[in-house]
C-alpha cells in the first residue's frame, strides 16, 4: 500500500516537471479535426487558399464553398501539413468561416485564433498562417468569379460579331 502511494507520488512529481504541453483545445482539434477534406478546385463556387512552404514546416490548404447569390460561405474544408498548433489553427478557421459573409471573414484576426487556442508565443505564426489561408481562399474565389464574368461578357460580344 505504502509502496503504491510512494510510486504514485513519484509519477505525479515527474509529470509536474514537464514544462510544456499543448492546450487541451489544440489537442481536441488535433484528435478530432473539423472539416478535413477537399472540394473540387475547379468548381466555380469554390475558393482555394494555399499558404506556407514545406521548407518552413507548415503548409495549409483551406477551401471555401460560397453561395453565389448571397456571398455566404456555406462550407469549408482544410488540409494542413505541420505542427499541432497549425492543424488546430486551420481547423478553427474552417469552423469560424462557415455561415459567414466573405467580407466578414476577411476581418478574422490571427490574434483571435491564437487567443482561442491559447497558443504560446512561439506558435503565434501558425495562427497568422491560418488568417492568410482564409484571405487567400476568399481572394481566389473572387478572382475566379471575376474571370468567369469576363468570359461570359466576352461571349455575347463574339456572338454579336458573328451575327
Amino acid at each position, binding site marked *: 500500500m505504502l509502496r503504491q502511494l510512494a510510486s504514485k507520488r513519484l509519477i505525479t512529481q515527474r509529470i509536474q*516537471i*514537464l*514544462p*510544456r504541453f499543448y492546450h487541451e483545445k489544440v489537442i481536441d482539434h488535433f484528435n478530432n479535426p473539423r472539416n478535413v477534406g477537399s472540394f473540387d478546385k475547379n468548381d466555380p463556387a469554390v475558393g482555394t*487558399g*494555399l*499558404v*506556407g*512552404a*514545406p*521548407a*518552413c*514546416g507548415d503548409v495549409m490548404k483551406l477551401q471555401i464553398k460560397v453561395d453565389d447569390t448571397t456571398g455566404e460561405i456555406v462550407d469549408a474544408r482544410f488540409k494542413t501539413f*505541420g*505542427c499541432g498548433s497549425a492543424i488546430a489553427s486551420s481547423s478553427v478557421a474552417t469552423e469560424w468561416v462557415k455561415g459567414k459573409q466573405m467580407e466578414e471573414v476577411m476581418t478574422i484576426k*490571427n*490574434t483571435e485564433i*491564437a487567443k482561442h487556442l491559447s497558443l504560446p*508565443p*512561439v*506558435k*503565434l*505564426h501558425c*495562427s*497568422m*498562417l491560418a488568417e*492568410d489561408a482564409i*484571405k*487567400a481562399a476568399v*481572394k481566389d474565389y473572387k478572382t475566379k468569379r471575376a474571370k468567369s464574368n469576363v468570359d461570359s461578357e466576352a461571349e455575347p460580344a463574339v456572338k454579336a460579331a458573328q451575327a
Partner: protein
Amino acid sequence: MASKLQLCVRRLSTLRKHCCFPSSSSSSFLVRSRSLLIQPSRTINHHSSIHSPPLSRTFYSSPLLNINSTDTEGPAAIDYRSLLQEGEFHSLADSTIHDLQEKLEEYGDTVQIDGFDIDYGNEVLTLKLGDLGTYVLNKQSPNRQLWLSSPVSGPSRFDWDQNAQAWVYRRTKANLLKVLESEMGQLFGEPIKLA
C-alpha cells in the same frame, strides 16, 4: 540534470518545427555541428532548401501563392536579385539578434520588471517580461526572414531591405528595431534605444 536534458531535447524538437536549419553548403562550423543533433531533418532541408526559393515554389500549382507573397498586399512577383545569399542572411540576422541581446541585457539591469529574463539558445532569442508577456525572435532561413512574436502586436515577419539597410515587415512597412523600441518603451515605462 536529467530534467534539464529533457528540457533541451524538447526545446530542440519544438524549434525544429518552428525554424529550419540551413543547408550544409554554406553554414558555419558552429551551425553544422548543431545541426548534427537533428540528423533526419538535415537531409530533408538540404534537398528543399539548396536553392531555397525556386524549389519550394515549383511544388504548387499556383507558384506565386507562397509565404513571400502573403507578406505583401497581393501576390507579387519575387525579385530574385533582392534575395539575400544564405551566408549574408545568416551573418546579418545573427548580428542583429546578438546586438539586440546585448542591449536588452543592459536594460535588464536597470528596468524594473518582475520576471525579466533573456535567453538565447539554438539561435532563438526569448525575452520574458513576466506578466507582460514574452518576445520570441528567430531566423526563418528558407525565407531569409526574421520572425518576431510579440505580446503586443502578435506575429510579424521581417525581410532585409537593402535600400533601407534594415529589417522591414512588408505588410505594415514597419522597421524591426523601431517596433521593438516603441513596444518595449511602453512596457518598460521609459524610452529605449536599440539601434
